[in-house]
């Protein structure tokens, strides 16, 4: 990672570049500072390291924390993938990917297996990650105790003392009110048997993927100016009760496009008559499977539509997946 300068390509290739950015937008001193915070975060798994977050050319809440972490670790030969709720082609993903194409000139991909750095908003890819890959999470609120204890001084003390009874009060309240632990995303986890960590608003479906993952997982919170990390092969255990153990969501039907099972599905409303479909939230995984010839109930080209479908009288498909999704 050298201090080379990347120039913005001029639109027609003839004009001299209008703006010259340092590699990956941030200046080298800032990247050093962020890397130091990242190293400390890796050394103390789950501990929130404060860092001097910079203003980024995007609003808070759009991934400023993740972008700064990515900028600090990106090298010229990295291959970057950016996903937003599992998708490579939504606004947030497209904008951040083109940001790094412009400012760092790195190669980008949508294929999970080909990427070395994956910046993500609220999902972990379905394709298992490998050693050497880095997953960068965008985090809105890094403090798992925030809604239970508003004072930052107090939450830091609670972390310091490992005093986590309070978070079980929240889980208790869930069971008392709903009969089960109703937290479905940002489900708190214990990292390496010490710090309780907010895994960012990923569905709890993805929590088991964090456990002993061969990939490095970094978390950046831009507004709150905190970085934390889960190093490779670190135990990540969701909090629960002995008689109400942690369980992930299950979906009653497979993906409507690729027939994938045991993956996280998005519900898509099709009409105002109860029509809906469930498709993979991970677009790369879905596209890969479709490319391999897998098909689902609604794959194109459509099979001859059943008579009921033509009249719109097709019964809605029942799914047991929780409706409360991030």
């Amino acid at each position, binding site marked *: 990672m050298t201090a080379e300068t990347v120039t913005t390509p001029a639109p027609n290739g003839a004009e001299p570049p209008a703006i010259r950015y340092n590699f990956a937008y941030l200046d080298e001193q800032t990247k050093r500072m962020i890397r130091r915070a990242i190293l400390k975060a890796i050394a103390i798994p789950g501990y929130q390291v404060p860092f001097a977050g910079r203003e980024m050319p995007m609003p808070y809440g759009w991934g400023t924390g993740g972008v700064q972490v990515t900028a600090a670790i990106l090298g010229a030969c990295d291959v970057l993938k950016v996903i937003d709720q599992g998708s490579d082609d939504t606004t947030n993903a497209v904008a951040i990917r083109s940001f790094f194409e412009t400012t760092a000139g790195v190669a980008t991909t949508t294929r999970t297996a080909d990427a070395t750095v994956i910046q993500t908003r609220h999902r972990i890819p379905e394709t298992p990650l490998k050693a050497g890959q880095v997953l960068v999470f965008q985090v809105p609120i890094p403090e798992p105790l925030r809604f239970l204890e508003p004072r930052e001084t107090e939450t830091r003390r609670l972390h310091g003392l490992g005093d986590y009874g*309070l978070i079980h*009060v929240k889980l208790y*309240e869930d069971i*008392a009110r709903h009969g089960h632990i109703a937290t479905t995303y940002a489900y708190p986890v214990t990292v390496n048997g010490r710090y309780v960590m907010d895994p960012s608003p990923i569905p709890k479906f993805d929590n088991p993927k964090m456990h002993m993952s061969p990939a490095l997982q970094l978390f950046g919170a831009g507004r709150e100016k905190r970085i934390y990390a889960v190093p490779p092969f670190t135990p990540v255990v969701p909090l629960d009760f002995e008689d109400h153990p942690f369980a992930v969501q299950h979906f009653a039907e497979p993906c409507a496009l690729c027939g994938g099972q045991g993956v996280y599905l998005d519900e898509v409303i099709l009409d105002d008559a109860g029509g809906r479909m469930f498709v993979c939230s991970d677009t790369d995984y879905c596209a890969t499977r479709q490319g391999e010839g897998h098909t689902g109930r609604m794959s194109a080209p459509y099979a001859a539509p059943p008579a009921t479908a033509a009249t719109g009288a097709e019964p809605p498909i029942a799914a047991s997946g929780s409706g409360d999704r991030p």
Partner: protein
Amino acid sequence: MNAPLLNAPLFPAAVGAADTPLLIAEGLTRYYGARLGCGDVNLTLHPGEVLAIVGESGSGKSTLLGLLSTELAPSAGRVLYRMRDGATRDLEALTEGERRLLLRTDWGFVRQHAEQGLRMAVSAGGNVGERLMAVGERHYGRIRAEAIDWLGRVEIAAERIDDDPRTFSGGMRQRLQIARNLVTRPRLVFMDEPTGGLDVSVQARLLDLIRQLVAEFGLAVVIVTHDLAVARLLSHRIMVMKSGHVIEEGLTDQVLDDPREPYTQLLVSSVLMP
């Protein structure tokens, strides 16, 4: 429950049987800037003993309670406490973690305003269960059973277990506070005007309950009150404070029936008889 403190005997010996004091304060002094909050207070409290601290507003009662319960740091003096393992230790020498464990296992604190002692947005069951979860209980069914048991002891109907304390009356909130504090079987409970702001019939029921629980669990209690009737009903000993100093102390009956200091005489004579 995995906390070692809780594995010690739960019920201390009755009054008089234990010779070693539970709590000792030596020369406790607290200044607020140049003003004196509470000056040179010495006291000992034995297991099962109820000590009332009385005096008018601003006399330093609450400061003294804060010092004893380590919520305030003393300007001078120290507080010693006999732990469940039998060792008497200086509370200032405890680590923050030990102090917190002590506060939520071996001690209780019942506050005048229930909103300060309860989590108002958390159900009654969650309030009672919080201490259990804080010391490592991770079984929902057991926590709930314990909460129902304690709500029963403080005369709150079991069906209110999932209601939050905002829907409770003042008297119920105070009783819930007591249940929340006693669930870990503490040996020492601090009470700051527990009957303040309650009407007389509710007060009477609450006092009855406190007296019964104190006897049942052999609790040592330090109770701060300006209500001499409360002091007479609950306490064995009484300390009268004025301008930050203890001016008179002794057995409750002796002090209230035969006050020596002019200020105590004034206090006693100020009580209205209906």
